[in-house]
């Protein structure tokens, strides 16, 4: 997956970049299955690899599909990004070990969630719909705002031939 990400950085043909990002999403979904997050993996495979790729291809259809060679030097962004990375690794060393059952994340509210209070065997569904329903309300607001913004942006286009692009 890391290799895919690096190749993605280096390719200039945007079509290859889009296809590689779909591949990257599928690999990420596999990793999520390995980490027991099956619901998230399904969503990532459907949304990340499916809808995002379709949207990117639709945008590529309307734009030029070749990236021009950058005139700026890549060293300043590289140095900035690596220093941020070193800082983050330093911070990550203070976090609990991988799969440590005594980590705070497993102690706080989750034992109660796993009591099956709402009689739904899939705990993710139960938490999403019952305990944290307001999250979904906020998410719907964001999606609605994004959709309204896209409609407002794309409606003012001059050529009517390209009007039937689906804007999510």
């Amino acid at each position, binding site marked *: 997956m890391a290799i895919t990400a690096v190749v*993605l950085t280096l390719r200039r043909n945007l079509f290859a*970049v889009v296809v590689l990002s779909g591949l990257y999403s599928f690999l990420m979904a596999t990793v999520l299955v390995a980490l027991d997050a099956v619901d998230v993996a399904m969503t990532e495979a459907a*949304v990340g690899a499916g809808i995002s790729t379709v949207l990117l291809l639709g945008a590529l259809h309307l734009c030029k599909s070749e990236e021009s060679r950058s005139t700026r030097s890549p060293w300043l*962004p590289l140095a900035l990004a*690596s220093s941020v990375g070193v800082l983050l690794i330093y911070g990550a060393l203070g976090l609990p070990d991988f799969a440590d059952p005594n980590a705070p994340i497993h102690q706080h509210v989750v034992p109660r969630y796993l009591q099956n209070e709402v009689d739904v065997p899939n*705990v993710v569904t139960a938490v999403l719909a019952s305990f944290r329903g307001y999250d979904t309300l906020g998410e719907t607001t964001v999606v609605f705002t994004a959709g309204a913004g896209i409609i407002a942006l794309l409606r003012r286009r001059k050529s009517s031939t390209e009007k039937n692009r689906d804007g999510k």
Partner: protein
Amino acid sequence: MIGELFEHFSYLVTVFLMVTGLYIVIARGNLIKKLVGLSIFQTSVYLLYIAPGKLLGGTAPILAPQYGIYSNPLPHVLILTAIVVGVATLALGLALAVRIREAYGTIEEDEITALDNARQDMERDPDR
């Protein structure tokens, strides 16, 4: 030190992906490439949330009598929301890129800046 790094391997992968996404966003001038970099950055955040929720020997958090250990369901819920929000913002960014392409004829940041500067010069000094 090496053992400690090994126990934090998931965080190392996360940080590597995050740095890659950050580098693409900063260094590449093409707007669509920037958006792809942003989505890589985003998936690294998914990994950052999901990885600590894993328990060794645990299964997916679907209750069944034959299993006793489940991975933590709370990050899964949060990330489900984040994925959908992520694709919404990606769609909005792409719509912006398409509009910029129609207005300027390019989606390269350098060329857009050059066009803007040229227009400002024209407005400041129209006789030139």
